[in-house]
């Protein structure tokens, strides 16, 4: 069993939105990033995996078992959903040690100290960043094998985000643990993700290894006249700006040889996402 999550033909239908059908495999020992614009279906997918909502059809297995059986080994951060705000971090410790078999109070308290989170203040008095940090350490204090994180780094300043990303990197060091995280801050994923799944309008646009993805795609910059002379087959998507055109291309090395006089930049996930969603396509 090399996959921690296996999703087969998953669909979730709403009146005005349909997710899937999706087929996704998440291998053990990896950090997999889920990207896509708001409303693309990231949270719906995560909620399906976690049994917060029921799929319309399809199958989801976590660690080879039907979902909901193995929640003991999963740590979760949800977007905007946590303990009631009048409770304190120390209340959470008290509650969680009766919920998870492997809850580690010492680890939790060490995390609280490390991230300077006050243990006796109600959650509502914590800053947005503190709140998020608390959600993350709560998800990690029962020694889970899988972390499923919906927007875990939103609201964190760059320094803390760095610390949190380090925490995630350490978490997967044993090559058994895995992380699935969705985020808007795509630059985070460039640092840590092994694999990127890009979802748009409920469909997977691509599902590729992060290094391959970032080395394989590029942005060719040219003028309007130059653009008209490009081989249309090479254009995945393009965006016309005031003075030039940004063209999304694949097979970076091949295209570089073909268009030696052009500036071709390496791609960032953000550019890739924007061009894929907002860019115009030829065919």
């Amino acid at each position: 069993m090399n996959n921690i999550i296996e999703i087969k033909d998953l669909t979730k239908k709403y009146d005005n939105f349909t997710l899937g059908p999706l087929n996704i495999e998440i291998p053990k020992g990896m950090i997999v990033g889920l990207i896509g614009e708001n409303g693309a279906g990231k949270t719906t997918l995560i909620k399906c995996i976690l049994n917060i909502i029921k799929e319309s059809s399809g199958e989801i297995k976590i660690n080879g078992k039907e979902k909901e059986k193995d929640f003991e080994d999963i740590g979760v951060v949800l977007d905007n959903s946590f303990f009631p705000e009048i409770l304190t971090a120390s209340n959470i410790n008290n509650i969680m040690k009766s919920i998870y078999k492997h809850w580690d109070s010492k680890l939790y308290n060490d995390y609280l100290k490390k991230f300077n989170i006050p243990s006796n203040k109600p959650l509502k008095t914590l800053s947005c960043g503190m709140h998020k940090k608390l959600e993350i350490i709560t998800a990690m204090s029962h020694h889970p094998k899988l972390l499923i994180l919906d927007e875990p780094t939103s609201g964190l300043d760059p320094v803390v985000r760095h610390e949190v990303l380090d925490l995630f990197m350490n978490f997967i060091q044993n090559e058994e643990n895995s992380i699935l995280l969705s985020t808007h801050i795509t630059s985070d994923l460039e640092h840590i993700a092994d694999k990127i799944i890009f979802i748009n309008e409920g469909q997977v646009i691509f599902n590729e290894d992060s290094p391959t993805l970032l080395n394989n795609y590029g942005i060719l910059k040219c003028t309007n006249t130059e653009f008209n002379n490009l081989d249309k087959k090479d254009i995945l998507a393009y965006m016309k700006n005031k003075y030039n055109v940004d063209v999304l291309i694949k097979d970076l090395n091949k295209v570089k040889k073909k268009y030696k006089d052009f500036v071709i930049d390496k791609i960032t996930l953000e550019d890739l996402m924007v061009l894929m969603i907002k860019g115009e396509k030829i065919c």
Partner: protein
Amino acid sequence: MLGLIKKDLLLSIGNAKSLIIVFILYIVLALYGSLDISIIPSILGVMLVISTFSYDYQSKWDSYAAILPNGRKNVPLAKYISTFILMFILAIITLMLLVIINYLKNNTLEVTSILTILLTSLVSFVFEAIMYPIIFKYGVEKARIAIFIITFAFIFGIGFLVDSPIFKNFDTILNFISNYYYIVLPLIGILILSISYIISLRIYKKKEF
């Protein structure tokens, strides 16, 4: 399960701190006025447990609870058990206060006071038994209208019951129950809550958050 019960009780305790002035006011009125404090546990209890639903709603706790081991299965039962524990604690506190107040006033503690505590607790159990499935189904915000209607129906219904010719003399029922009240009333309460729990569990297991 225990964790979820702890969570609801911690929420109630946190919230009870803000109601402490009301509680003191009741005691003062009981000491220097003619207020019978034996109805307090039920009123205070209902306020406290309904507010735990409000706190849950504000922080979208239900989604989070669903990802905890056995969370979906245990949330309704934890709510009912914590309600029962809370009502029990409030009843004991009230009973102790009654003993102290009567001692200070040089009165003897009357059986009817204990009976009132049990009866009003039962009434609030019935109220909660009706409310919980509605809250689990529609959420506490939408259920607020139901809370008003049911509260009104309760007051009206009890008033009607007391005035109706069949129960012309409310004391006769009290006297009838008073022989067995210590068994009968809690049993009725548990039975009603159990039925309500089964309905709530069915609703909650299928619910999407």
